[in-house]
């Protein structure tokens, strides 16, 4: 080989290496995004699972029923959460035997104290800081597991706010969504795959479903607002309105995945069933549907996870209201986890930021669990014909 062509070959190999590096970089970049993202959320959110408490002498006197602030010494009372004080009168009414006693208790600290003890930016005054430091040095403060976060609804006081009512709301909304979209979607898929003849109507419906899958989710919110709320009169912010809106949104996802599952059942099964005299519905319900059930289930779980993380259409139908108590029915005003994350993320008070991240961690854990279930289900029941 002469010198020139050798040189050009070397250049081409160098170009090859460079191209491969570009491609690998892209993949690495995507991985880096993922790592940065998760470590950022975890580092912001994990502290919210612990909550500051202060050990104080609580003297339960008769006056505490009217003036709860009298229960503790005046010096520490402004380090303690107002949420704790608010609950005192009720506690005394329920346990009248407490009146007249003095006990040493761990009580919920104020949100700012909590942030100070976690070395985060806070709005504490200098005097309060020295007091908190003194309490800390005497082991009168601790970070305990944050049960409030899981048992309470939203609150205007960050230290006593939790995800409970949002989680209950999410369950209600998901029940409505799945109760609507799962049967409708599977029936549609069965019709299109097994019953419909190939004519212009069927093709138009197919095109329509594919287009529905690509319509931005916020437009489903406009539909929900205009039709479910303004026309039909379903109460605003209710789980019913949100669930139906999300149900329409996840319908195309379920239809498309169910059709794929039905299609993967080979025709020989159908022909065998027809051959022994089964009707079309018997073929479907006795043979095709049971065989494609794992696939349909996988698709539905993925659709469920998608609907669970959706926010935009729910904002439009009003599901971002302040909901301190868990809803007790499908027509009560409710909020859902993503909407709660959205409201907290725009709250002005600092401690809400870590709660937002913690709520995100809980939501992500649930979603990853759902997706993992779907993957395992597919692996376990996957059949090759």
């Amino acid at each position, binding site marked *: 080989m002469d010198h020139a062509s050798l040189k050009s070959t070397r250049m081409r190999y160098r170009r090859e290496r460079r191209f491969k590096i570009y491609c690998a970089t892209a993949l690495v970049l995507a991985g880096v995004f993922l790592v940065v993202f998760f470590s950022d959320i975890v580092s912001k959110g994990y502290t919210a699972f612990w909550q500051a408490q202060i050990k104080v002498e609580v003297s339960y006197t008769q006056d505490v029923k009217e003036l709860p602030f009298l229960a503790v010494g005046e010096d520490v009372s402004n380090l303690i959460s107002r949420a704790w004080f608010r609950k005192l009168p009720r506690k005394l009414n329920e346990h009248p035997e407490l009146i007249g006693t003095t006990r040493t208790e761990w009580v919920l600290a104020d949100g700012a104290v909590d942030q100070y003890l976690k070395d985060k930016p806070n709005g504490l005054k200098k005097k309060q800081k020295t007091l908190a430091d003194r309490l800390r040095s005497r082991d009168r403060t601790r970070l305990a597991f944050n049960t409030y976060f899981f048992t309470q609804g939203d609150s205007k006081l960050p230290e006593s706010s939790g995800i409970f009512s949002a989680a209950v709301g999410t369950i209600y909304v998901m029940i409505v969504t799945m109760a609507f979209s799962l049967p409708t979607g599977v029936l549609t898929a069965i019709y299109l795959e097994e019953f419909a003849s190939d004519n212009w109507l069927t093709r138009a419906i197919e095109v329509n479903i594919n287009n529905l899958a690509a319509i931005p989710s*916020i437009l489903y919110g406009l539909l929900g607002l205009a039709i479910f709320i303004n026309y039909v009169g379903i109460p605003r912010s209710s789980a019913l309105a949100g669930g139906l809106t999300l149900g329409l949104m996840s319908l195309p996802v379920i239809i498309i995945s169910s059709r794929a599952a039905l299609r993967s059942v080979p025709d020989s099964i159908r022909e065998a069933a027809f051959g022994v005299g089964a009707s079309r519905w018997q073929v479907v319900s006795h043979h095709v549907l049971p065989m494609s059930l794992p696939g349909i289930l996988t698709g539905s779980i993925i659709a469920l996870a998608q609907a669970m993380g959706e926010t935009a259409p729910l904002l439009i139908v009003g599901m971002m209201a302040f909901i301190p108590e868990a809803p007790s029915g499908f027509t009560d005003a409710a909020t859902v986890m993503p909407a709660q994350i959205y409201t907290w993320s725009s709250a002005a008070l600092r401690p809400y930021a870590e709660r937002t991240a913690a709520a995100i961690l809980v939501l992500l854990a649930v979603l990853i669990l759902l997706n993992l279930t779907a993957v395992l289900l597919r692996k376990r029941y996957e059949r090759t014909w």
Partner: protein
Amino acid sequence: MTLEYILLLFFAGLIPLAYAAFFLGRRKAETDLDRGYRLNSPPSFYGWYVIVWMFLPAIGVSAVFAVLHMAGILSVPAPVVLVGVLALVAAAGGLALHRVRASLRARKIVEDVIRWLLFIATCISVFTTVGIVLSVVFEAVKFFNMVSLWEFLTGTTWSPGSAFLEGAGRGGEQSSKAEFGSVPIFAGTFMITFIAMCVALPVGLFSAIFMSEYAGRNLRGVAKPALEVLAGIPTVVYGFFAAITVSPFIVYIAETLGLEAAYTNALSPGIVMGIMIIPFISSLSDDVISSIPQSLREGSFALGTTRSETIKHVVLPAAFPGIVSAFLLGVSRALGETMIVVMAAGLRPNLAWNPLEGMTTVTVRIVDALTGDLAFDSAETLSAFALGLTLLVVTLMLNIVSSIVIRRFKQQYEM
């Protein structure tokens, strides 16, 4: 009596009735069988036949009452409807049971009903489309009665500011007139979409090339699920990430470079939206690249090309239509994405070229107009539907173009 309680009663009454009907119908058919008659259908179809005839009239009547109630023509108290419908169910069930005999073509009848049921379920998705189009168009038409289409499409100032005063009948008090020129909103939307695609297209495409052309099975087995995780993250979480982490970081970088950046800059939601779209682009392009016939690659290798030369000169040109379609779908995603921009982009419409300035998008204005306390028929609220209509038209057009492109591509390689 709440609605839920009535529904509970309804189903508590219907389920045992249906159960009884099914068994009675089947029993009657089985008795005929025992008497030596030849049944037309399997016995359980006679049971289903009775159930079907029990419920169809009841469902029809309930639907009529519901429509009458909603239209406000006639409002019958719910308990009356409940009792009436249950009585109708019992009567129709008895009649159907009476008609059960061996020669009845129960299977055919039940099958036809099922077929209709399936067809009705299928129509719901069509109704959804019609519903979206109608609900958006109706309100948008009301809006265009107040603001001309031309002004909406070409105006460069969006200041609905005093629209709510006019709605309250105090229009004269403020001198500034409400203006609905959507150009700055579209400019912001396209700017953020452009930034997102600048991130998503190269990263998504190159990782797809790496996964389908270079990576071994093991790496592929790790990388593909990792990208799927990226796709499964809810958009509100991306929005939080953009607003709390990326925006301050960009402001910090801009300051160290001596530039001025707003916390609601367009760059941060753009970049994060790009990250969100990466898995979308990469999985679509991966499908397309893997579907290019191996013979094309082998033919190219046989001429002595390197792998990258084959990719650049053979694979990518062949996959080009598919990649274009993935790109268009990505754009349509970015245009309609809401939570990231609601949380990280600005509210103020701003016509500017600088991505470090605050900008707003179509979806932000829609959410802002519909989550406030404005009256539903104020111009600002209705403007949300006009914006929604444009969003719908643009995304539908992108989807249709992309599906045409991909169909041509599939025909070419006979997939």
